[in-house]
């Protein structure tokens, strides 16, 4: 009984890690076992993914909601802010992570120790971290950052949350602070997986560090970088914490993004339908990203 699975491969048992077989059929108890192993996830998926998503689509299915949404100037601002946030925060973070992962590859003991400190923001929970940012900036030009500016450079800091664009910039910097370490760690893993002989060969051929980066690191890291960027964009779209806790959407709704605007619609204006519609209006952006991710992950082997 227990041997059926092996026999059933029909002679062509693949050895090594080449092409791992066309699908082997699972028979009898093996089939039941594997179904049983999948049941917990299937249950979670049906109860907490399919049903709520379906419910959400149904809640936001009335076209008049979108007319109301597009007529609201707060929505327009939030939509533009969301695009700015995604374009600036995600790309700056990924670029920084790419460069810093190269820095952390340097074989120095103190750089290894530095990595431990650098990872700290990622391990720090979001609410306390962003509240600390808020308190550093908010207090009538007397927060820690303003204090440092005046002691070190003798300049008085601006009123950080007086203008929408400056408040949004503060949110973006806080977001990068919190999440860049994770992606640095992932790209560092990708860099460490590149065989060192490639670099040695390139060096032997007289390639400068810049050309080694462009012709060895970039092509080998490109897929991982792309996938990380897409995942990070998807996560950032749903991330309310930097805006909610750092600027709080101040001043007067001008630094909100879609996720925090939905929060306001649902709680302050008691209009959950509109809140769902605000979130669903991001689908034209999110669905292509998820499809891209699916295609990338099914065709290429990546490490995460």
């Amino acid at each position: 009984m227990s041997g059926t699975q092996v026999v059933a491969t029909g002679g062509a048992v693949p050895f090594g890690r080449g092409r791992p077989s066309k699908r082997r059929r699972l028979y009898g108890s093996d089939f039941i076992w594997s179904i049983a192993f999948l049941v917990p996830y299937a249950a979670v998926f049906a109860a907490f993914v399919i049903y709520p998503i379906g419910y959400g689509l149904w809640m936001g299915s009335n076209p008049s909601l979108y007319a109301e949404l597009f007529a609201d100037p707060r929505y327009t601002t939030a939509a533009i802010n969301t695009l700015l946030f995604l374009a600036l925060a995600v790309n700056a973070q990924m670029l920084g992570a790419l460069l810093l992962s190269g820095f952390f590859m340097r074989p120095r003991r103190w750089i290894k120790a530095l990595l431990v400190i650098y990872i700290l923001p990622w391990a720090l929970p979001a609410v306390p971290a962003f509240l600390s940012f808020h308190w550093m900036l908010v207090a009538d030009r007397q927060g820690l950052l303003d204090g440092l500016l005046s002691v070190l450079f003798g300049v008085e800091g601006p009123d950080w949350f007086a203008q929408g664009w400056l408040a949004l910039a503060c949110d973006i910097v806080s977001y990068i602070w919190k999440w860049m370490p994770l992606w640095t760690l992932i790209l560092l893993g990708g860099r460490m997986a590149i065989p060192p002989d490639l670099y040695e060969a390139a060096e032997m051929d007289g390639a400068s560090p810049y050309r080694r980066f462009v012709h060895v690191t970039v092509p080998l890291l490109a897929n991982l970088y792309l996938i990380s960027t897409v995942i990070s964009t998807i996560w950032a779209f749903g991330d309310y914490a930097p805006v909610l806790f750092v600027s709080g959407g101040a001043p007067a709704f001008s630094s909100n993004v879609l996720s925090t605007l939905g929060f306001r619609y649902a709680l302050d204006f008691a209009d959950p339908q509109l809140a769902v519609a605000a979130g669903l209006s991001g689908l034209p952006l999110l669905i292509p990203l998820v499809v891209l991710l699916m295609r990338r992950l099914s065709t290429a082997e990546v490490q995460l």
Partner: protein
Amino acid sequence: MSAAPPLKRRARRPNYRLRRVLVEAASAALGAVVVVWSLIPVYNMFLVALDPTGHNEFTGEIWPLHPTLDSFVALWTEGADDVEHIWSQFGNSIYIGIMVMALTVVIGSLASFAVGRMRLAQDWALTNTALVTYVIPSSTLIIPFFRVMHIYRLLDNPWAVIAAEVTFATPYAILVLLQYAKLIPVELDEAARIDGASVAQVYLRIYLPLIAPALAAVGSFAILLSWNDYFYQYMLLMSEKHTTVAVALEQFFDDDDAPWNYMMAIAIVYSLPPIAIFYALRRYIAAGLTKGGVTG
């Protein structure tokens, strides 16, 4: 011609040395920037927490002039109105975090075993299914989630939050575990089966030990996700008995006169568990993240 190469080399040597010095100086400078960048907000937490009034932001202090541990003492003894339930709130957060971590690890490892090792379906089928979770952003999904939890009669029950957080932690867990499982030769399972091991035995004795680093990485992700969450805990738990620390912290934020030194003291204590877990499992997390490194 014969004298040219040594001459050239001699001329270039100081150049090399200069370049090395410059590189080291630049990397030291970058290191200093990284330290300051990473630690300023953390330092600010201590600055506020150690201030006796908690209102030092309005004086422009950059150094604690009168440091005191009052806020931590008040926290420990629950000796102030604002922190009177703090330890039960910590209990709630820890309960939710541990359950999310355990369930994510169990569900993720079972599903990845069925698909990645037993080949019930192709890898990509499971990955793509899991990715459907990302189609609607989590901050929007909370609203239908709230209604659905009402239908399930799970409102104001920690399990509603646990379910939500497990839902968002599992797709990434499955992604990582499937990639990691590919690195282990299938022949191991087959050999064990020939020797008479049951499927459950293969899962418990062979699969789990071999993917342990990835499980550590995935488990830490899950607990960090739970610790980062605020919205679901705020929406799905109403009664004081079930309030978590993240929600309690936000309540300080809403109150203009709140003692911020207490808030930052709570924030510091709240940050300790994930940091401890992260540094305890750091080696495994690094391995879990890097071992699957088949870029291409």
